[in-house]
């Protein structure tokens, strides 16, 4: 009898056992090991040598590429994250309008996100080509002489941003499902009160979706720091290292220059920057994010009451 009770207690742990093993072997183990490696000079083919904080000191003092790549990635995030969110929100507002056939547009806007970064880089590398690219042809019809997107250091980062904005659909879908859940009677009441659509957007829709804006802001900051595939294949980090993103810098230090310890230190600095940025965003959120449980349940009471409980 006693044995049976013990085994019953073990059952839940058996269910989550796959994740526990995976967590130890593929996540926390490598995470700790990576921190250890960051204190070593660790070539791929020779014995590792302990260097203390040497890697970190080198990064902040003698390695000029470190700060350059960091600034490039910060610049990219600073332009791309807000731009992407505005486009995503704009598209989400469009596809929630009560007009016929709008679902087809939802599909069209989302399709680019299911395509490989490899394919996206080939597609945009070809469209943005300075010699025969179709974008510059279209610009020339408007009387504009297009830049040599991928060859001119001043324009290459914009080329990367244009290509990454192609995947705006996933964020659009998150905004879309949130806006869809806002009960229609809130808007009807506002219409009776004489609020025009712009007013309704800024005083109803926008405040209600601030938690989703927060979610999208954090996930896109994280992903913009990890952007590697697209720059690797679209620009290769060039021209003149103008798009040598931090993720690419880390990757190349590890797998091209075989400086595994140094690259681990690079990765940890990136991790810490992400954590600090996320913490700052969270901290600021109390000033601009409204949860309906605090706001006295103005709008979504009942329909989305689950939300407060699950957070």
């Amino acid at each position, binding site marked *: 009898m006693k044995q049976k009770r013990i085994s019953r207690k073990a059952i839940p742990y058996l269910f989550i056992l796959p994740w526990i093993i995976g967590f130890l072997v593929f996540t926390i183990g490598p*995470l700790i090991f990576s921190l250890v490696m960051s204190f070593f000079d660790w070539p791929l083919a020779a014995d590792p040598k302990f260097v203390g904080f040497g890697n970190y000191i080198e990064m902040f003092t003698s390695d000029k590429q470190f700060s350059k790549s960091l600034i490039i990635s910060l610049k990219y995030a600073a332009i791309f994250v807000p731009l992407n969110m505005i486009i995503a929100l704009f598209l989400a507002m469009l596809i929630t309008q009560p007009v016929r056939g*709008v679902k087809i547009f939802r599909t069209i806007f989302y399709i680019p996100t299911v395509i490989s970064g490899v394919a996206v880089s080939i597609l945009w590398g070809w469209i943005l080509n300075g010699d025969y690219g179709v974008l510059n042809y279209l610009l020339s019809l408007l009387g504009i002489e297009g830049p040599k997107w991928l060859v001119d250091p001043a324009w290459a980062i914009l080329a990367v941003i244009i290509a990454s904005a192609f995947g705006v659909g996933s964020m659009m879908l998150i905004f879309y*499902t949130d806006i869809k859940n806002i009960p229609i009677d809130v808007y009807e009441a506002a219409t009776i009160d004489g609020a025009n659509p712009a007013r309704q957007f800024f005083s109803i829709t926008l405040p209600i979706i601030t938690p989703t804006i927060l979610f999208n802001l954090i996930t896109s900051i994280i992903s913009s720091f990890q952007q590697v595939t697209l720059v690797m294949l679209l620009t290769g980090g060039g021209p003149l290292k103008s798009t040598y993103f931090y993720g690419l810098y880390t990757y190349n230090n590890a797998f091209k220059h075989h400086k595994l310890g140094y690259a681990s230190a690079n990765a940890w600095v990136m991790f810490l920057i992400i954590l600090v940025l996320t913490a700052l965003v969270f901290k600021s959120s109390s000033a601009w994010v409204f949860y309906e449980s605090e706001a006295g349940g103005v709008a979504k009471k009942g329909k989305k009451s689950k939300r407060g409980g699950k957070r």
Partner: protein
Amino acid sequence: MKMSKISKTIIYILLGIMALYFLSPFVYMLFTAFKTEAEAVAYPPKLFPAKWLWQNFADAWNAQPFGTFLWNSLLVTVGTTLGQVISCSLVAYGFARFNFKGKNVLFMVLLSTMMIPWDVTMIPQYMEFKMFGWINTLKPLIIPAWFGSAYYIFLMRQFLMGIPKDFEEAARIDGANAFQIYWKIFMPILKPSLILVGVLNMISVWNDYLGPLIFLQDRSKYTLALGLAAFKGVHETQIIPMLCITIIMIIPPIIIFIIAQKYIVEGTSGSIK
């Protein structure tokens, strides 16, 4: 809510402009793939090919062992999808339908692992897989998927939390054990969630570039994404074959997405709640 004709027209115009931005690259690529190389770089460009060269696709496909790459991609996609669906549903069931010591802490840990950038763990993972003798095999791409993935577990757990408690009560009275209840009662209910996770995983694995790039070396082991990228490196000046393979590669995820669209939209709605 009623809309005036004018605002409807404005909305359709805006939808049309945006659709043009998202669709025209694909349409233009599709037409160009049938052109000759000279036509493709001609200036000013023409939309339609002078002659539709279907042969372009066969030539591109045969230029490299793309059949092998496709096979490898299929192996990895099917292998990881099976693994994710089974392991994530087990773990999600454990977190959603039981009470046990340390549950909340473990679930918080699970959620926080989503914050760890792959850049941090990829180097030790590479060394680990090297130690296991897995480098240059498909194992590092497939086996970790059999141990679940935080985001998918989270999605399934959210779904399971919504099912009333008395669901398993009846089955327990009938004498079924926990695994039978999970398998016979919850797997069928979980279907929309299983499809969602399966599709999300299929698309992301099929498209993955960095994983194969780090763990595979021989061309005979390449996946389609890696093969296409390598092809780009060698044939930089030949646009047509590159576009042909790109088209072949993007068709499966687009079809899968269109079929499973409903589940993705509903799943996205469930995950942000």
